């Protein structure tokens, strides 16, 4: 290779390499080190020495090894062909690496992130001579049957007149398909792909307010703790409480146009699971395979720690790129704690002063910057799109008072706290109705109320209040047994029990129940509240709790999540209750 040498290795300490004799380099510049041309990034400059964070295993690297410049920061390549791919943390395509390097990931391997050979059928949507600026859409290709991939002028471009526009036809991503003639008379080439530095958010016109829910098909989320399109949420939970399953479920069934799934420092098999399963799952909205709306970033726990740090930026940059085309993206990061730990490990190797629990003092800033990249935006080109961020957090010992959970909580507006006790009783999803919250409820109220004629809000408030009462009542039961409570109060306990089994639980492996559409959610909630209303009345009229609970229709309510349509459940509920009541009216 013919890159210029800009310095020599002075010290190697794991993924952190000190370079001396630096002549010309800038912060965050991408460099290549040693004979294998290992990829690294300059994270500190001091006089003639620099500290480089290396994205690959540094075994064998030695003092005096040369350091080459790349001339720019770490970028991702953005263009058609991203969808359906699986990348490592610095956007190396894992399928291609396997084809060239075998089943194990070796060092110094590289391949183009998107194919430079594949031809795409380009359709222009702008005229020659139009005025364009950064972000302008000049045409599109059909990336697949779901996604029209808009071809945009790079946001870095100052703008000008669109000239030399190629006719509709087949092009690869490296070909120049137009030029932008600037006011200074200089031409900037436009290709179907462009590069963007991962640590810089892509510019937008403005942030818009959030008012549309991201429907996840998970009842506990959509009804109790909803997320807005463009919103941010944290899912903290100890190991085995269901972070990954929740992320997978949302990635499978939510109503985003595109999913970017970042496996950050987690298990290899979990990425394999997605990779093997998604192509066989059908998106209920489009009828197409889920892989046709998914991009995977896999930097598993045994892959180099610096690339783990980069992986979430790689993911969110790709998400922003599709947002700029006017799409709604959901980005999952599993787990942001591993990313924070990568920061800690690298910080430690650079001998930085640690703050809490060894984490660097800039941890909160980094977390904030990351979540800030979410939002519902008016894009530079006038389209609207959103990036919603769903971040898993893995607190040590499952204790939410640790720094990553606490700081994340400051910067997200929705919180799905996973509960160890629920998980061990196999109540899934183990999202606690006591510790979770969503600040989006007021923003989303009008959307839901339009859909349900106001029932969403009324029923939601009612059930939340029953759940609160349940906490108090079960304290009493724990001390003196349930016999001490009157039937009317024991009935509240049993309604809450029913709500938990019949509504909150949702088995991700059940073919019918893994996904529940918004209409069915509303109906199920209504039925349970109706059961409460009518049951309370019957008990007041003189019936007993046992009689109410033993109604056949109650068994059917408990299993209603497994049937596609709820049929005559409401009628049967009403008539059984009426019969009970009448027995006492006389």
């Amino acid at each position, binding site marked *: 290779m013919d890159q210029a040498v800009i310095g020599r290795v*002075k*010290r*190697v*300490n*794991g993924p952190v390499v*000190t370079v001396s004799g630096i002549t010309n380099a800038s912060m965050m510049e991408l460099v290549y080190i040693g*004979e294998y041309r290992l990829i690294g990034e300059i994270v500190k400059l001091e006089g003639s020495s620099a500290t480089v964070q290396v994205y690959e*295993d*540094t*075994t*064998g*690297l*030695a*003092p*005096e*090894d040369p350091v080459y410049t790349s001339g720019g920061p770490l970028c991702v390549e953005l263009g058609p062909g991203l969808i359906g791919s*699986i990348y490592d943390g610095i956007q190396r395509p*894992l*399928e291609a*690496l*396997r084809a060239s*390097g*075998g*089943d*194990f*990931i070796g060092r110094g391997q590289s391949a183009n992130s998107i194919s430079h050979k594949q031809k795409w059928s380009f359709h222009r949507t702008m005229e020659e001579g139009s005025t364009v600026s950064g972000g302008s859409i000049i045409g599109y290709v059909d990336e697949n049957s779901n996604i029209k991939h808009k071809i945009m002028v790079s946001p870095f471009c100052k703008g000008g007149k669109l000239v030399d526009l190629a006719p509709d036809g087949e092009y690869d991503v490296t070909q120049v398909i137009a030029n932008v003639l600037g006011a200074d008379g200089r031409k900037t080439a436009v290709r179907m792909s462009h590069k963007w530095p991962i640590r810089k958010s892509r510019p937008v016109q403005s942030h818009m307010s959030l008012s549309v829910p991201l429907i996840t098909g998970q009842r506990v989320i959509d009804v109790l703790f909803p997320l807005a399109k463009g919103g941010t949420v944290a899912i903290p939970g*100890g190991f*085995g409480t269901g972070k990954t399953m929740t992320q997978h479920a949302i990635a499978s069934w939510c109503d985003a146009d595109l999913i970017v799934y970042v496996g950050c420092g987690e*298990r*290899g*098999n979990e990425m*394999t*699971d997605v*990779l*093997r399963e998604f192509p066989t799952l059908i998106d209920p909205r489009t009828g197409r395979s889920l892989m046709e709306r998914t991009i995977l970033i896999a930097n*598993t*726990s*045994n*892959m180099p720690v610096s690339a783990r740090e980069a992986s979430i930026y790689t993911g969110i940059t790709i998400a922003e790129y599709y947002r700029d085309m006017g799409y709604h993206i959901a980005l999952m990061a599993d787990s942001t704690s591993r990313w924070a*730990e990568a920061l*800690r*490990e690298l910080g*430690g190797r650079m001998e930085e002063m*640690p703050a809490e*629990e*060894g984490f660097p003092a800039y941890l909160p800033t980094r977390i904030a910057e990351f979540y800030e990249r979410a939002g519902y935006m008016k894009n530079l080109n006038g389209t609207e799109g959103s990036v919603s961020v769903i971040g898993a957090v893995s607190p*040590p*010992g499952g*204790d939410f008072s640790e720094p990553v959970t606490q700081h994340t909580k400051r910067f997200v507006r929705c919180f799905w706290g996973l509960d*160890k006790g629920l998980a*061990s*009783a196999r109540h899934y999803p183990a999202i606690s109705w006591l510790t979770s919250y969503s600040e989006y409820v007021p923003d989303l109220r009008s959307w839901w109320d339009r859909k349900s004629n106001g029932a969403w809000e009324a029923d939601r408030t009612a059930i939340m209040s029953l759940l609160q009462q349940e906490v108090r009542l079960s304290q009493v*039961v724990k*001390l003196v*047994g349930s*016999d001490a409570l009157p039937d009317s109060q024991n009935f509240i306990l049993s309604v809450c029990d029913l709500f938990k*089994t019949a509504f909150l639980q949702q088995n991700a492996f059940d073919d019918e129940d893994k996904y529940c559409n918004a209409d069915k959610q509303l109906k199920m909630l209504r039925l349970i509240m109706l059961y409460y209303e009518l049951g309370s009345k019957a008990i007041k009229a003189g019936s007993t709790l046992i009689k109410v609970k033993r109604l056949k229709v109650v068994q059917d309510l*408990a*299993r209603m999540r*497994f049937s596609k349509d709820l049929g005559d459940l409401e009628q049967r509920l009403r008539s059984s209750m009426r019969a009970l009541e009448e027995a006492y009216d006389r």
Partner: protein
Amino acid sequence: MTDSQRIRLSGREYRGLERIDGSLVFMKNTHPVGYNELVQITDKDGNIRSGQVLDTSDEAVCVQVFDGTSALNLPDTRMVFMGEPITLGVTDKMLGRVMDGLGNMRDGNAAPMAEARRDVNGSPINPTARIYPRDFIQTGISCIDGMTTLIQGQKLPIFSANGLDHNILAAQIARQAKVRGADSDFAIVFVAMGIKYDTAQFFIDSFESSGVLDNVALFLSLADDPSIERLITPKSALTLAEFLAFDKGKQVLVIMTDMTNYCESLREISTLRGEIPSRKGYPGYLYSNLAELYERSGKIEGREGSITQLPILTMPNDDISHPIPDLTGYITEGQIVFSRQLASKGVYPPVDVLPSLSRLMKDGIGEGMTRSDHPHLSNQLFASYSHVKDVRNLASVIGEEELTDLDRCYMRFGEFFEQRFLKQGTNEDRSIEQTLDLGWKALGFLPREELSRLSEDEIDSHYTAAEA
């Protein structure tokens, strides 16, 4: 300097250390030495030890010595930098042999001829090359087969505590484990880290008495061996395991005990180097370091074999939130958790099923794999047994006589579940059908309406109410 130039310098011998600190030695004025390089250290009497470069700069090289530094002195110690990472010569002839942490024969006999040399650090398996593990391993132990099913290619640790029967269980699993209907070529790699001689001997005897010793490779780094050797032991062992599984097509079971000792050695080195600790003095990279071991399991597309890992760790102070079990649980595909309380009730194996989990179970059980009622049945058992805990608490407050009839049913269910389902003999090998039928028998103590996790059909075909 290019790598090839450096390789010429590799092999040159230097004499005289700058500093010795615990198991670390420092040397100045060497040629540029590569990170992670293998080092040969010779003491004044000519004894050779092995080490690895932990930090290298133009000023000094820091080397960790796996055989410990005792009896080394500054002036007479000689070092050779080998210009390559630590490798292990591998062959299936290592089955039936006893080795140390670096793969040297402990019995003093000649080492078998290696078929290949492999870097002990391994390389990450490309996620696109993996096959998602699905094959059910019947261990013959109800709490595992029924509730936390082991899958071929899984990493499933035992979280135990001092004085509990984890070794007996691990040996029983090794003896009884089989994939039904498959006649496979299996091997066991046994990794001892800092355990006592008699514990290692117990395993050897158990392998011997079941006639499998010839299929077992033992890597022993015992309590009286240098603690630093434990850091390399699992890497050597997993390197052989990978060779056996992915080159030779064997179904390999790796038993690693005790991971707690491994982590302590890691902490020792980290403290010595003055690194910033995270929790309880363990280094911030403990997670990544453990992941580099545990992720060396699974199955690869187009290759016959598999690596199933059964790491054993003792939870310090019986505390599951201690960094060692905690980080392990975040990496492995589930965990089998021991309970001192069950052990004291005489239940073997004393597995607390509630915090236990097998993440790969979902795809390995049910119709065509175990039995169609298995998923819902285990789900129901978990849910009902977790309610038993509440009822027992209530009973201890208000007294058993005051319990409602329903609560009394739960008490009897709980007794049966622990004493008949969980508890079994150390040589008892139950079929999965026996296990599931026992589960139904336990549910017989509960009224039918309580079984909301099961379908009506399943209840109709398997449920019989227990006699009062």
